[in-house]
Structures are given as structure tokens and as C-alpha cells.
């Protein structure tokens, strides 16, 4: 057993700034019943008072009602413990009521979920001040706080709200359940306890679905963009390689870098030496191309190449196209061949040997002239003439139209008749000519000739053809005889002579006239020679002009011409006969 322990004043609090309560902790009781008492005094006063109320606030407490509370004074409070063994006192506590105010928590806490115009949801929290406190008069001014958290969370989220008694909370998770509490504090006191919890569940908003949709869209687009960027990056790399292809390093043809790397200079030199040949070949190829382009140069260089490079047989083959160009020259040869053909067509060259032949023929003809009445010399004369016949028609055709007309007459199918008529006519003509010369009636002769031709043809057409068919084969020599008849025909040529005289008179000089007369006089029997001599004279004159005739040679030629004129007169008489026949054919055709 001992005296009681020293008690301790726990705390003093005023809920309304008009009353207050103090609590104490008892010390040890010493094993004996102990009584506790609270005594106090006010500042400036010596009187000590005892606690007015030990019951209202519970055990070990003292309640000071309004009657015993002075707000603007300091209380000096002490607690005493007493038992049979003794007593002890606590340390004094100085209390200023204005600084020990601790109000009750706020009341009527209400939670409400609301939505703004943009469908944004928020939590509206509102409450009322504690009841005991007289706030309306300004005796108190309170400040408030609220706190909230999701139901499962550990930590609270605190918001200071100032003097207002409502608060809006945004950005809460939909579908979550939230717990909310509030408390208050006077201007110079302590915070109250937290109020009772209120809870509310936030609804699942449609906006949440929208947000999820947008989130999904965003994620997908992000993924797509990443893929595209990745692809572009890869393609870009490949595109770079395409756009900027690798630049090839410089290389020497036939040069082995491996040899350099190995350090084999000898092989390098040998390789370089070997390389000397290919460029020469390249040069040759270039030269060849050059030569091929220029034909002339190729032709010139052919022998040199053949000499220098006998093994290159290909070049001769290349030269073959040059031979083709030679073919072009052969074409020119073909032109030359044409030129060769052309001189064949030259009649004057062909005529020249004939002319040379003719003077030979007159030499042979001179004896026939000596024996004109014998028939044998006529055949001999016909023989050389027959040799000339195959040439004569071809030659005569281009020469003169008269010959062509003669052929037409032959084709008419009346050669036999013409021959017989020619023979008869020759005799008659000779007689007539002699008479005419005597009488000098030229017109009568012409008229008789015209009449005789149609009468002969009309009288003996059929029997002559049948009888003379075998003789026709022989008639070509007979035709030669006709030439004799031509001599008689010379008589017929008198009208041509007349025409010739008419034409000759204005154009021919006197010297030619004298020559013509002389021939006629000398050959009274051969009066027919007068026109042939004239023709030969003209030809001889031309030849003399070509041969550069001297005076003496001209005289000799004139003599020769006189001798030749006789032979030529015979032949030309034949020609004259043909000429004479031609107009007759014309006459028949006209009839």
C-alpha cells in the first residue's frame, strides 16, 4: 500500500466555443481506493474552484458549461489523486478556450451523379455544418475537406473545399463504387473527425463504349501506320539501291587483281605482255571495218593485206562483194554487147563490101556484055546474084519502100504472070522504043504500057499458074533474065529518066548533064544506061570526095568509072526494072 500515482490531464476540447471538457488519465491507485478531483483558477484571480460537473462527459472527465466558461480568459487546471496513504497532483495545464475548439463532423452528406451538356459525368457532393456550432452569427467560420476512394482502393484522395459546403468531382471511373467522407475545422481550432461514409456507383456511360471504339480505331491505325512505315523503310532501301546503282570500279582488261594481291609481278608482266596482242587485233578489226566501209580503199589495200596477212583468207571472201561491183561492170559489158549488136545493124558497113563486090562483078560481067545475046553468060551472071539474094531482101527492106512494095506484089501471088508479061513486053517495048525514037512519040509509049499490063493479067490467070508452078522455082534466075528484060525495062525507064531529067535540070550542074549525054551517045544500043550512069556518077563523086581525089587520079577514076558504068548500067537496069514494076503494082492496087 502506497499513495496514489501522479495523474495526467489528457486533453481539453471545446466543440462550440461556449463550453469545454477536460479528460485525465489516472495514475496507479497504490492498492487502495483513490478519489480524483479537478481544480482550476482563472487568470488574474486567486480563487481556486473545483470541477462543476464530473458526470456529463463520462468517467475521469470534467465538463464546463456555458455558465463556467469564459472564452477570453486562460484556465489553470490541475487534477489531484487522494487515498488513505496520501495524495498527488498533476502538472498544471493552461487552457485558452479559443485555441482548443474541435467541432463535430459535418452532417447530411449527400452524393449525386450528374451529367454536363457534353454528357460528361461527375459526382456532386454536398453537406451541412455541424448542428451545435452557431455558424450563422459569424461566431464560427468553418473550413471543410472531403475525401473519396474506390471501394477496393487503399489510399484516399483528399480535396480542400474552403468555406463552401458542396463540391464537384470529375474524372471518375465508370462502373466503380466510390466511398466519400467529409470533415471541418474552425479558424483557430482542430479538425473534426471524418463523417460517416457515403457510397455511390458510377454508371457505365455510352461514352465509355465510344472511347473504347476510338481506342480500338487508334490502335489499329497506329499498327497500320507502323507497318506502312516499316514497308516504306524497306522499299526505300531497295529504291535507293535501284535509283543509285553501285558504281563499278575501274578495271584494266586482262589485268588480274589476284596477281597483285599475291604479289606475282612476273605473272602480271606476262599478262600485260599477253594483253599486247588483243589490242592489235582490235585495231585490225577497226581497220577492217574502215576498209569495208570504203570500197576504193579496200581495193587499194587488198594486195597489201594479202601480202602482209596471207593466212587471212576471209578478206578475199570480203572482196567477193567487190567482185559483185565488178558484176556491175559486167552489166556495163552487157551494154557493150548491145553496142556490138548495133554495128551489125549498120547498113553502110554491110553495103561497103557489097560495093567492093560489085566492081568485081562488072569485071566478070564485061565478057557477058561482049556476048549479050548468049543465054549461058546470063546463068553465070545469075549465080553471083543468087548469092546476094538472101542478103538483098533484108537489105532492101530498110533501104527503100520501093523494094517493100515489090515484095507486096510478090505476095499478091502474080509473079509468074508478071514474068511472062515482062518477056513479051520486053520485046514489044524494044520495038516500041525504036519506033518512038524514030517518031519521037513519048506519050504514046506511056499509054500503051498502061494498057498492056491489065490486059495481060486478065487474059491468062489460071493456066499460067498451073503450068508454070515448077518453073516458079527456077524463075528467080528467070527474074535475073527479067533483069535483061530490065534492059528492055530501061526502055520503060525512059519516063523515069524524064522525071530524073526534070529534077536534075534545076539541081544538077552542067558538068553532070554533059556526062550523062556522053554515056547515052556511046551506047546507042544501050540507051538504057543513061540514068544508071548518072546514079553511079553521083556515088563515085562521093567516094572521090572521101578519098581526097587528086586531079590525075580523078581522070583515071573517070576512065574506070566509064568502064564500070557499063557493068553497073546492066545491074542498075535490073534495079530500074524493079523500080518500073513498083508503080505498076501501085496502079493495080489503085484499080
Amino acid at each position, binding site marked *: 500500500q502506497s499513495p496514489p500515482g501522479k495523474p495526467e490531464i489528457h486533453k481539453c476540447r471545446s466543440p462550440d466555443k*461556449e463550453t469545454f471538457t477536460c479528460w485525465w488519465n489516472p495514475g496507479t491507485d497504490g492498492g487502495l481506493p483513490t478519489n480524483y478531483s479537478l481544480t482550476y483558477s482563472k*487568470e*488574474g484571480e486567486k480563487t481556486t474552484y473545483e470541477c462543476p460537473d464530473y458526470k456529463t462527459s463520462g468517467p475521469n472527465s470534467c465538463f464546463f458549461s456555458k455558465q463556467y466558461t469564459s472564452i*477570453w480568459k486562460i484556465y489553470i487546471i490541475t487534477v489531484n489523486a487522494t487515498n488513505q496513504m496520501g495524495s498527488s497532483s498533476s502538472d498544471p495545464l493552461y487552457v485558452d478556450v479559443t*485555441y482548443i475548439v474541435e467541432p463535430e463532423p459535418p452532417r447530411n452528406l449527400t452524393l449525386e451523379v450528374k451529367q454536363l451538356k457534353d454528357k460528361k459525368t461527375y459526382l456532386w457532393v454536398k453537406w451541412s455544418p455541424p448542428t451545435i456550432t452557431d455558424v450563422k*452569427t459569424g461566431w464560427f467560420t468553418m473550413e471543410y475537406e472531403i475525401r473519396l476512394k474506390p471501394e477496393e482502393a487503399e489510399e484516399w484522395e483528399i480535396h480542400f473545399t474552403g468555406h463552401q459546403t458542396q463540391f464537384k468531382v470529375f474524372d471518375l471511373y465508370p462502373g466503380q463504387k466510390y466511398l466519400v467522407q467529409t470533415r471541418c475545422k474552425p479558424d483557430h481550432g482542430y479538425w473534426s473527425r471524418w463523417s460517416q461514409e457515403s457510397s455511390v456507383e458510377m454508371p457505365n456511360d455510352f461514352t465509355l463504349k465510344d472511347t473504347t471504339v476510338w481506342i480500338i480505331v487508334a490502335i489499329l491505325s497506329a499498327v497500320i501506320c507502323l507497318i506502312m512505315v516499316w514497308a516504306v523503310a524497306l522499299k526505300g532501301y531497295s529504291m535507293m539501291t535501284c535509283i543509285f546503282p553501285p558504281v563499278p570500279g575501274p578495271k584494266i582488261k586482262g589485268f588480274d587483281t589476284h596477281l597483285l594481291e599475291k604479289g606475282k609481278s612476273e605473272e602480271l608482266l606476262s599478262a600485260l605482255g599477253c594483253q599486247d596482242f588483243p589490242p592489235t587485233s582490235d585495231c585490225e578489226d577497226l581497220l577492217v571495218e574502215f576498209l569495208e566501209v570504203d570500197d576504193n580503199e579496200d581495193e587499194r589495200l587488198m594486195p597489201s593485206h594479202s601480202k602482209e596477212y596471207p593466212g587471212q583468207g576471209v578478206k578475199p571472201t570480203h572482196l567477193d562483194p567487190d567482185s559483185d561491183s565488178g558484176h556491175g561492170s559486167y552489166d556495163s559489158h552487157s551494154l557493150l554487147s548491145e553496142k556490138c549488136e548495133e554495128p551489125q545493124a549498120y547498113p553502110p558497113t554491110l553495103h561497103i563490101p557489097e560495093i567492093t563486090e560489085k566492081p568485081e562483078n562488072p569485071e566478070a560481067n564485061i565478057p557477058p556484055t561482049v556476048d549479050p545475046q548468049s543465054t549461058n553468060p546470063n546463068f553465070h551472071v545469075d549465080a553471083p546474084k543468087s548469092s546476094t539474094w538472101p542478103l538483098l531482101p533484108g537489105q532492101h527492106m530498110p533501104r527503100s519502100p520501093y523494094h517493100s512494095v515489090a515484095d507486096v506484089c510478090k505476095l499478091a501471088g502474080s509473079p509468074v504472070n508478071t514474068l511472062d508479061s515482062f518477056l513479051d513486053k520486053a520485046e514489044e517495048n524494044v520495038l516500041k522504043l525504036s519506033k518512038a525514037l524514030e517518031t519521037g512519040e513519048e506519050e504514046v509509049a506511056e499509054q500503051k504500057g498502061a494498057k498492056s499490063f491489065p490486059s495481060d493479067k486478065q487474059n491468062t490467070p489460071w493456066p499460067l499458074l498451073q503450068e508454070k508452078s515448077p518453073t516458079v522455082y527456077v524463075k528467080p534466075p528467070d527474074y535475073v533474065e527479067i533483069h535483061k528484060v530490065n534492059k528492055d525495062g530501061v526502055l520503060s525507064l525512059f519516063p523515069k529518066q524524064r522525071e530524073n531529067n526534070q529534077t536534075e535540070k534545076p539541081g544538077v550542074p552542067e558538068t553532070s548533064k554533059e556526062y550523062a549525054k556522053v554515056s547515052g551517045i556511046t551506047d546507042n544500043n544501050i540507051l538504057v544506061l543513061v540514068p544508071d550512069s548518072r546514079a553511079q556518077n553521083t556515088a563515085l563523086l562521093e567516094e572521090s570526095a572521101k578519098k581526097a581525089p587528086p586531079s590525075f587520079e580523078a581522070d583515071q577514076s573517070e576512065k574506070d568509072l566509064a568502064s564500070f558504068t557499063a557493068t553497073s548500067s546492066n545491074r542498075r537496069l535490073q534495079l530500074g526494072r524493079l523500080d518500073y514494076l513498083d508503080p505498076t503494082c501501085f496502079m493495080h492496087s489503085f484499080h
Partner: protein
Amino acid sequence: VPTCLVRNGRCFASLEEMLERAVGLSEEISKQALQLFTEFDNQYAQSKQLINKNFKKCHTSSLELPKPSSTSVQTHPITLLKIASKLLSAWKVPLNDLVNNLPSLKDIHPNILSKAREIEAKSAGLLEGVKSILIQMQNGDTEDENYPGWSGLASLQSENEDDRLFAYYNMIRCEGRETQKVETALKMVKCKISNENNC
């Protein structure tokens, strides 16, 4: 609306605005006074022994605010304003003496000095504000300048160190409590004038 009203050559804001400012300022002074007491008490822990002595009454203890629950007389705003004005006037000289003599204490902390000077300046400003409000409400009638006198300067200048410390301790304690009276009075006036909307 003009910012202020001019009367007798002075510029007066609206009544509600002036009261709002006064309440705010008094709250600041009250908090700083509590801080000053706490710092002084912490630095001079020996003062606990000082408390064992008899507490002297504050020189403005006689100026008490009526309790809000009293039914005897309905407190009029002018009555409350006059109490606040007397309190502030009664403490004008003591605060000046406090600021001037605190440096004489050994090892005084600079925070205590600056805090004391700040309280003196703001209290002077608040006094001017309360007088302006009274002038507006009474239409210029400023009578009744009686307020309790201050006779503690001799104690602040005592040669005895303990006596001087006790004097300063008691003065700082009283300043804190009396400042709360001014604050409460102004708040009650504000609630009455604004039809208890902001209370």
C-alpha cells in the same frame, strides 16, 4: 460603378468590400500572433517557471464581446465595430513599445523581431479600416474615443531579467487573444450586414 466613394476628401470603397478586407486582414494578424507566441515560448522554455507565477490580466480584458446566445440585448453591428476599434487603439502603443524593446533581450531570434514588426504594421492598417467603416455607418459621427490605457512599459524595461521576460511573455500572450476578439467581432458584423449569406 466607381471603385470608391469620396467623402470629406477621402476615398471609401463599398461597405461589403471593406468588411471583406477587414476580416481577411484580421485573420492574418491573428495567425501571426499565435506563431509569435509559439516561437517565444519555445525559445524561452524557462518561461514555464514563469507561468507558475500569478497571471496578470491583460490591459484590455474589460473589453468583452457579448455571447451570441445571449438574449438580453440584440448585438448591433455598430456596437461590435466600436469594441474592435477600442481594442485596436488600446494595443497601438503597446505594440510599438514591444517592437522597440524586444532587441534588449539576450539571443532574441530574428524571426521573433520581424514577426512583431509585421503585426504592428498590419494592426495599424486594420484600425484605419475599422474607423472608415464606422464613418460610413455613422455618417461621420466619431465619438467615444475612450479605451483602456497601457502601463506595462516599466516592466518591459525592468533591470531584473526574469521580471522582464515575464513581462514580454504576458504581453505576447495577451496580444494573441485580443486579436481574436477583433477577428470575431468583424466576422459577426459581416454576417449581419450580408444577411447571413456568406456565413
